[in-house]
Every structure is written in C-alpha cells, then in structure tokens.
C-alpha cells in the first residue's frame, strides 16, 4: 500500500494505492486523523481509484476519518471508488454515509 498527500490551503487529497489491510491500515488511519485533527484541514479528500483491496480495518479507518471530520465541522470526501472499494463499502452499507464522487474534478468542485 502506498499513501501520498497533495495539499493546498484548505484541501488535502490523499492518494491511496495497492492493498489496504490489517498490516497497513493503521498508517491510513494515522495520516487521515492527523490531517483532520492536528492540521485542521477543512476538506480532506481520499482517492481510492488505485486501491486493489481494502479490508474491514481499512473501512474502519475511513469511518474514523468521517467521524473526526464531523466532530470538527470539516468535510471528508471519497472519490474514484475502485471495484474493490465500492464492493466493501456497499457490503458495509456505507455508500450513502460517505460523500462520494466519481472523480477528482467533481470532488474538488463540490
């Protein structure tokens, strides 16, 4: 799994790629929560288009990001759901819970 961040004034985009599982989801969780709670970025966007696999711990990391952003009045957005990511969020009944866009352009315009 690889995670990288692109930042401007009010928005940070995390690009995730590869497999997100129990071995590396703590890194996702830590990165997202740091951005929301410490940096206080008002809009955090997560790019899931290159995610080949995501397990329940990866989903939990996203849910924690969503909850943290709600607590602080910021926004937490997903875009580009890969087949794997969409399946897992659907199984978790979370597709309508997250703010989700098809691509980065739409996410940034939101």
């Amino acid at each position, binding site marked *: 799994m690889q995670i990288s961040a692109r930042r401007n004034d009010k928005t940070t985009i995390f690009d995730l790629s590869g497999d997100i*599982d129990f*071995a590396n989801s703590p890194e996702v969780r830590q990165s997202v929560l740091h951005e929301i709670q410490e940096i206080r970025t008002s809009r955090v966007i997560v790019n899931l288009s290159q995610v080949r*696999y995501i397990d329940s711990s990866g989903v939990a*990391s996203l849910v924690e990001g*969503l*909850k943290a952003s709600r607590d602080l009045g910021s926004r937490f957005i997903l875009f580009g759901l890969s087949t794997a990511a969409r399946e897992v969020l659907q*199984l*978790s009944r979370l597709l309508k819970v997250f703010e989700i866009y098809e691509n980065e352009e739409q996410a940034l315009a939101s």
Partner: protein
Amino acid sequence: MLALNSNPRLLSVVRGAIEPLAETLGFPAVQRRSITRAVDEALTNIVRHSYGNRLDEPIAMYFRRTQRRCAGKVQQGLEILLCDSGPAIDQQKLRGRPLDEIRPGGLGLHFIHQAMDTVEFTRMGRTNRLRLVKYLSETSNAL
C-alpha cells in the same frame, strides 16, 4: 495445506493464493473476491483476537474440494479450514454486529458471513478451528 505465522504482512500472500485457487475451481470474479475477503478477515481475526497481535504464532490452513446435494443437484464447493492455537474463543462474539450503526470495527465477521455458505467454529483440544465453505452456484462453471 498452508502453514504460516501470525504476521499480518503475510495476509497479502494468502490473498494472492486464494483468488487463483477459487478461479481454478470455477468461481466467478465477484465470488472469488468475496471468498478472498472472508479468508483475509478470518486470518486477521486470528492475528488480533486469538494471538493478541503476536507475530510468530502458528496458523494452519487446509483447502479441499467438497460437495453437497441441493434441490436434487450436486453442488461443488471449496472448503477452507483455519486452525490456530490461541485460547478458546467466546462464540457469542462471532456473530458480528448490526450494520445500522455507523462506527469503525466489527465489519470483518459480517464480510465472512456474507461471503460463505458455511461458517462453523469449533474448539478441538487446544485448537480453534474455523471451517468456511462456499459452493458454486448453478450458473457457475463446474469444477
């Protein structure tokens, strides 16, 4: 049979083995992914809950073809048995949680039950045994 230790870094290796195995047995792509997800979540539960995140505890996995008779037809399937030597598991905790509450955690068991036709946990001696079975649907290719 596949013997591994409880290092989470090996999860990707197992996933890499399960999906082609399921493909060989004729499971379609959606079911291959769900079977792989179920096994991955089951192994994660062993690492977390049975072994308390210790990295070098033994896990044994057994795979075999199986079949059942359903509505007068024989259904072929894949049986996966996961064995660990952790303490006995409280079976009350193996039911998963309702999904109407939005919170992190507790989704793994849901994924396992969603994916597999049979999910059976037994304790034999000092071994926890989780038996997972998935049968091919009628529209899938035969084994």
